[in-house]
């Protein structure tokens, strides 16, 4: 009985840790553009916004150009 409870607890802990790790990875891998202005201010355009949609394809072109050897 005790072994079964421990196994269940271990499984639940693993599931929780996995979901946290997955969410962190996804959050970190999100596509965005950070623009820093001369006065020290900064604005982030997240993927899906019209601004990011205009800027991200150019960034992809830049990456492709840099990796085309």
């Amino acid at each position, binding site marked *: 009985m005790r072994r079964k409870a421990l196994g269940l607890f271990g499984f639940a802990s693993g599931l929780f840790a996995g979901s946290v790790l997955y969410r962190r990875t996804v959050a970190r891998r999100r596509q965005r553009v*950070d623009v820093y202005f001369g006065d020290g201010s900064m604005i982030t355009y997240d993927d899906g916004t019209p601004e990011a949609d205009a800027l991200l394809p150019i*960034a992809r*072109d830049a990456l492709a150009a840099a990796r085309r050897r």
Partner: protein
Amino acid sequence: MDAAQALADLTEISSQVEAAVLFDEAGEIAGSTLAGEGAAALARAAEKLLERASALGAGDIAQVEASTPDGSVFVVSEGRRRIAATTGPDPTTGLVFYDLKSALRDSATVSDTETVSDTVKPRRKRAPKKVDDAA
């Protein structure tokens, strides 16, 4: 320090930087870690990124980071001079910007030094005074 040396130092210091190009607002390339058309294409894309970002908001743009799952693109602008770099996914943003600014400034000191050395002739060293041993 010239542009090539500044870029060599950059890639040595920052293991995250995959490729970098130094250029000006007219698109003239001062130095690059990429050969041939790659450098020009990266410079063009970086300048376009600055222009589009500038059109979206008000004010002068100092730097831009665009993150994608495949990697990130960094562009730093100081006056007419620019540096663009690419990295892998999830770079340490602050460090990369710091290294890029250092490289941009290091390469900027060249033109000043060259201008000075071209116009001012080095002074001749004065011969040391002879000490009269007999005195």
